[in-house]
């Protein structure tokens, strides 16, 4: 076990997969000579050379499409989006090409590609640089959508994503890159489509992913002081959803709060609430409550931004609601 940052965990994953399989290459803006805009690809150019670590012009649609074409003929590209905000420019390649190629061709052409990069908000980056789009991609059949919260999950899931024969949308987080965590030694793979109970509990289920996992763990500590044992379920993969873990948890605790960074309407949480009310109706002692980002473009001002994001206090309040707890 080593304690490393989320960033270094991703770096290790890339390095190991580049070593493991010649067909893997990394392509994106500033990934090579700059060592990556967020230094995720630090040292890779030096080790693997410019054929495999490829700097691109600012042309997301173009190089995403090049990735798709290369994948169709047998390579395993990792295409970095400097942030997922910019991937909007490439979305035609991700949604219309990568996601659909296998189906449209009657099974002839798979697209074993990974699109990866940081998503969601950081600090004061304002409206165009703070968006969490996991629900957009989770909507598309043919894609897989992965959102690791911890260094161990980042490494294990990126390796699995690269080895996956389907197109994977891999959403990291700028605010997560410096977080440290224990990562197992040796070959560490985390399966796609498997949630993890980060903290077991009996009284209420908190469902979260990516940055909101830390928020929920903090809320769980606060709830413990009130005598409430919260169970924190880290989704890890949004599509396919680990319905078994979700339903199992809510069946045991009978109440649920779903937390996400993204906007409320048609967000990931809406899908989870639908799942639970449909398949665990009789287990529910209270309606399910969601805590989401505020339904507004992200403001620049620091306090406004803070107030728009989910935090432990909001999660605790929501938990109290579903526990029918009044007062403090």
């Amino acid at each position, binding site marked *: 076990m080593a304690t490393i940052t989320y960033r270094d965990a991703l770096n290790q994953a890339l390095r190991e997969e580049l070593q493991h399989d010649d067909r893997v290459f990394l392509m994106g803006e500033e990934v090579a000579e700059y060592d990556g805009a967020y230094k995720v690809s630090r040292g890779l150019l030096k080790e693997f050379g410019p054929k495999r670590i490829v700097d691109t012009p600012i042309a997301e649609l173009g190089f995403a499409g090049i990735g798709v074409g290369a994948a169709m003929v047998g390579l395993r590209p990792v295409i970095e989006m400097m942030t997922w905000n910019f991937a909007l420019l490439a979305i035609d390649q991700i949604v219309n090409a990568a996601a659909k190629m296998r189906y449209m*061709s009657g099974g002839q*052409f798979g697209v074993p590609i990974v699109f990866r990069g940081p998503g969601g908000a950081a600090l004061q980056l304002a409206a165009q640089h703070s968006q969490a789009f996991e629900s957009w991609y989770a909507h598309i059949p043919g894609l897989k959508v992965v959102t690791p919260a911890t260094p161990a999950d980042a490494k294990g899931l990126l390796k699995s994503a690269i080895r996956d024969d389907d197109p994977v949308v891999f959403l990291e987080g700028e605010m997560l890159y410096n977080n440290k965590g224990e990562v197992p030694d040796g070959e560490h793979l985390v399966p796609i489509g498997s949630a993890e109970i980060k903290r077991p509990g009996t009284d209420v289920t908190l469902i979260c992913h990516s940055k909101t996992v830390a928020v929920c763990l903090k809320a769980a500590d606060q709830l413990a002081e009130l005598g409430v044992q919260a169970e924190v379920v880290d989704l890890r993969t949004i599509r396919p959803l680990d319905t078994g873990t979700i339903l199992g948890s809510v069946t045991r605790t009978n109440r649920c709060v779903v937390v996400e960074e993204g906007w409320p309407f048609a967000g990931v949480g809406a899908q989870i609430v639908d799942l639970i009310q449909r398949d665990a109706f009789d287990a529910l002692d209270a309606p399910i409550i969601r805590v989401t980002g505020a339904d507004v473009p992200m403001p620049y001002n620091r306090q406004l931004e803070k107030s728009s994001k989910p935090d432990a206090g909001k999660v605790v309040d929501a938990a109290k609601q579903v526990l029918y707890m009044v007062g403090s």
Partner: protein
Amino acid sequence: MATSTKPERTTGGADAAELHLRYLRQMLLMRVFEEKAGEAYSLGKIGGFCHLYIGQEAVAVGSIAALRPDDYITTAYRDHGQALARGMTARAVMAELFGKATGCSKGKGGSMHLFDAGLGFLGGHGIVGSHIPIAAGAAFAIKYRGGDQVSVCYFGEAAANIGAFHETLNMASLWDLPAVFICENNGYGMGTAVARASAVKNLSVRGNAYDMPAETVDGQDVLVVREAMDRAVARARTESKPTLLEIRTYRFVGHSMSDAAHGTYRSKDEVEEYRRRDPIKVLAEQMRAAGSLDDARWSALEAEVKAEVDDAYTFAEESPDPDPSELFTDVYAPEQGR
């Protein structure tokens, strides 16, 4: 640098005659097939969109003739011609148009999404210009692996205005990718004449923007097309550099089955004018002049092609629809479930 091509024909020789006959047969097959497809569409056997290649046959035949079996081809949605020229059977294509399980894409792609992995045919794409970077991706993979194959990309002149075209040509030139970008300039992007859509009328000029060699080619003469393609393919194979070929051609029918051949954005006279340069007629006349085609041969060819297309039609009609369970297959890779 853009140059106009001077037609240089190989004259005489049994090999040439055989080659020309092959070209003629292929173009005739495409013509009869497309006409039959148009008929099938009117009868409701083909649904959705159906974009016919009638009038542009020489472009596909001449260019694909210059390729090897291990090269890659990517095209847009007007893909029946390239598919047949590449060697996909009339049966497989017609069945796909009819949406049957025996179609090349198992009935799940349709007219715009013809694919054949064995023939290196990477589709068949519906979003204008979206496939251009994909073709460059195949070229990237060729170079990555150190091979000498070529990746060919067909698109219309209207697609030369979209972002994907520019981003791709820039990177293809920047990275020296072994690609040939063929712009089939048929004068109209759906209903819009090229002069109204493009700041430059001579599209090969766009090669300059990306430091990419470019040529303007007469697309109604299959032998001219072949020669231009040979040059571009050689450049890709031996130097690993891309070429932009602007091939001037004309479609005798509307943009798609919902579009009239003339009367809206094209006059009847204009269409008639171009019909005089029907690529099949152009080659046939050349062959007659060279003595490699006579009436008997022509009739035999016509009959043969007609029989092949009729057979494909019947095959498509009689083929079964996909099993309902196919709705859920091929969304994800099989061995990984879901």
